[in-house]
Each structure stands twice: as structure tokens, then as C-alpha cells.
């Protein structure tokens, strides 16, 4: 519920992004943004388990309403400086929506997700942290 209120507040604060669909289904998701991009995503299944494959569903939007692209996804454990043992694949679902398959966080602890997005010539890396227990 708090997340939905947060999403609503975000759309009110940034009316240019009002068309960006932030709710990725089941009324929940995570939103990160920079001065150019807004990325909404959620894991599938919602709960990420250590060592279990999962997918990520994305909506990638830009402030200027240009088409945006999800270029690459990676994750690493910053403390140990190792990444995943698996290479995810990105499938475009159209309209800035993407599905990323083949994610596996194989250890408990802090994982940093790196999300590379691009609109025209501009690209940028956004990040998000997960703590797995």
C-alpha cells in the first residue's frame, strides 16, 4: 500500500512521466529514477530466493517521453567483487517493457543490480540493492 502511494506521489511530482506504467502487475514493484530515466521493475516470482532462478519485469521510461531501451542487466556482490554465475537474457515486450530471464543470486548477502538503459545516444547505468537472507 505504501508502495502504491509512493508511485502515485512520484507521478504527481513528475507529470511528464504520467504515461509511464509503473505498476507491473499484482499492484507492486520497485521504481528507480535519474534525471533522464525512470525504471519500474519487479522480480518474478516476487520473492527472490538464494540460488533459485528468477526473472525481472521492467518498464523503462524517459523524462522527455523518448523511447527508451534496456541495454544490459548485471548484478554483483560488492563486498566480494563477484558477479552472478549466470548470464541473463533480455526480451523486449514492446513499449519500453522488458523481461529479463536467467537471474540467480547464488549467495545470501548484498547484491547490486546494474541496469543499463539508453535513449538515442544517451546511455546511463542505474542501480538497485537487494539484501538476500
Amino acid at each position, binding site marked *: 500500500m505504501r508502495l502504491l502511494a509512493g508511485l502515485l506521489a512520484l507521478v504527481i511530482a513528475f507529470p511528464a512521466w504520467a504515461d509511464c506504467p509503473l505498476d507491473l502487475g499484482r499492484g507492486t514493484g520497485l521504481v528507480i529514477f535519474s534525471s533522464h530515466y525512470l525504471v519500474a521493475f519487479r522480480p518474478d516470482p516476487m520473492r527472490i530466493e*538464494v*540460488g533459485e*532462478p528468477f526473472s525481472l519485469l521492467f518498464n523503462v521510461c524517459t523524462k522527455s517521453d523518448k523511447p527508451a531501451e534496456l541495454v544490459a542487466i548485471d548484478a554483483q556482490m*560488492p*563486498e*566480494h*567483487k*563477484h558477479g*552472478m*554465475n*549466470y*548470464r*541473463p*537474457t533480455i526480451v523486449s515486450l514492446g513499449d519500453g517493457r522488458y523481461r529479463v*530471464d*536467467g537471474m*540467480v543470486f*547464488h*549467495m*545470501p*548477502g548484498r547484491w547490486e543490480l546494474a541496469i543499463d538503459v539508453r535513449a538515442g545516444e544517451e546511455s546511463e547505468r542505474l542501480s538497485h540493492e537487494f539484501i538476500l*537472507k
Partner: protein
Amino acid sequence: MALAASGALTAPAIAQTPLQWSDDKVKAIARHGPWPPPLSRDPSNRVAGSPNAIVLGEHLFNEPRLSADGAMSCATCHIAARDWGDGRAKAMGRSELDRRTPSLWNVGHAHWFGWDGAGDSLWAQSIRPILDPREMASDAARVAGLLREDKALACGYERAFGEKPGGGDEKLLVDAAKALAAFQATLISPRTPFDAFRDALLSGDREAAARYPLAAQRGLKIFIEANCAACHFGPRFTNGEFGDVGIPFFTRPGEVDAGRLDGLAKLANSTFNLLGRYNDDVSGASALRTKHVQRLHSNFGEFRVPSLRQTGSGPFMHNGHLATLEDVVKHYSEVNPDRLHSDAIPLVRPLALSAEQSADLVAFLRTLSAEPPPRHAPPPLCP
């Protein structure tokens, strides 16, 4: 080891006070259960969980005629009374191999098989020693012929697969392996003193928790604080992945065992991997790891993280390099960080344990084993 653990179950009739456990530590302990885990069925194997396939699989497991010279069966190395290993540092096939025979306890819950993870299913892994010229040195024609021509095995096959043993030799080899896998997936290790302690702690049963030896409790605290669960995670005490923990990887002068690096090359080249035509899972979900796994330079010298449950009396590590559990703890206490060349917070670092702490950690590890119930001969294939 099993005897020692059994003693641990019964010895502490003396009243003692369990250590104080913070909420975070209780949560960490909870993640190592419940035990036994819920049954899982391998979707890539159409006869997984089938009682008839399990019976056929156990007969095949003990069948020396699967081997080229009729002298070796799966059970030659995977001995029930030795925790489904052989108690040797290096496995002995037709000659000595470079790695230790892994235990089969809880193997149905794994997702990579063999010390190098060259197998991505239990049935594919079961084919490897049958064909390996250093082990059973057999071939698909021999296995298929046995299934077709031996009256009892042919009958057992028909019961398990719902048809007479037909089709090509390779298909019948795979089916034999799927029956072997169905049997091996039933090998679930028994509940242990640790499981009783975990459950008592979670239910607030202080009296039951107090039966767990204090030395084991102290060892468990060391296990948690040293972050051993980064790799030895979950109810099976393994995340099922791979690591280099500083064990020498030279097999003989000038030769190395590259571990996971080679295992991934073998996986990619295998006719029997989950991306191939023998995967019975039409959804494709079971092949997800195989599809996405990446081969990295850092895989060199990595070996599968073994479960800590029912480890047997040793030797230990992928190549039997360490003889006893005490040696294993000493290794982690004194491991050379330069050998592991990590430029971050290393996952494996010298724990610098005192003699008392080492003994406590060993005491804890021993409570992850228990005396398994006696085994009976399998029922006849077609009575």
C-alpha cells in the same frame, strides 16, 4: 561420525542451559531447515517419483552387468553403509581417479552434479560413470541389450515406463539412467541432533533445545559468525554452486584439475544436457540454469560446494585431500589468503580458531549427521 552423532543425541541427559541466541542468529539457524525438505520431483525425468521406476533403479544401481567386464556396479563405489560413498580419498574405478566418490545423500535436491557440475540432471550424471572408460566402461548397446534381453529387467522396465523396452540403444541408456535417478532421489539423509535443536529453538522449547550439546552450540555460533552459510546455505548446507577454497588442484606433477571450468565445457558438449532432446520437461523451465550458466575464468579450480549433512567419516574435499573433519576445520582456520588471491572481502579467509573453538566447530559439524535407518533389499522387479 554417525556413531558420534548418535551419541550426541542421547548423551546430554544432564540439564544444561542453551546459549543465548539473538533474533538474527535464530533466523540464521532457521534457514538450515526444516528437515527433511519437501519432496521434489525432477520434471526433466518422466519417471521421477514413480514407485516402479524407483524399484527398477535400485536393481540397476546394484547391477554389475551394466559395466563392460560385469565387475562393477554403481554400488561398487556408492556404498550404502559408507554414506553412499566409498571412504577412499580417490575413487577407484578400473584405475584410481583424481577425485573422491561423492556421497549420494540428498542428491535429488541438487541442481549441478559431479564435483565439476558437468551434469545438469541426476539422470545425465548417472550416465557418466556407465560410459566412462575409467569406470564402468560400458556403452549404450550393452545397457539397452540388458534391458531388452533380461526377463526381470525387461519386466521392470515395462512397469516403470508403461511400455516394453524399445527404441534405440541411446534412448534405453537414458531411460536406465532415469530409473537410476528415480532411485537415488529417494536417498534423504536422516534428521539429526541439529534439526531437533533448530526446531526446539524455533518453537521456544527450551528443554528440548538444552539437549543439544553446548560444544555444538558454540560451534554453531562460530559457523554463523564466520559466514560459512554464504556457501553452506539452506537446509542442505550448500548453495549447490562452486568455489575455490584453497585445496591444491595439481593432480600430479604438471597436471591440474580445472574443476568447474572443464565441467562447463563438458556440460555444453553433452548430448544428455537439459537443452537436448532427452529432457522430458516440455515447459523448458528445468533447463533455465543450463541455458544461462556462464563459463568464467574464475571457474578454474572451483569445485561444487558439498552438503555438510551426513558427510561420513572422510576423507573430505573434492580430492580427499583432508583425512578428517578436524583437518577440514584446521584448513579453514589456517588457509593461506595469498593462495585465494581475492581483492575484496574474501569468502574464505583464515579463521584463526583456538583449539577449543576448532573442537566446538567439529562438534557442531558432527551433529549434522545421524544413524540412518537400516536398509532392506529392494522388492523383486516382477514377483
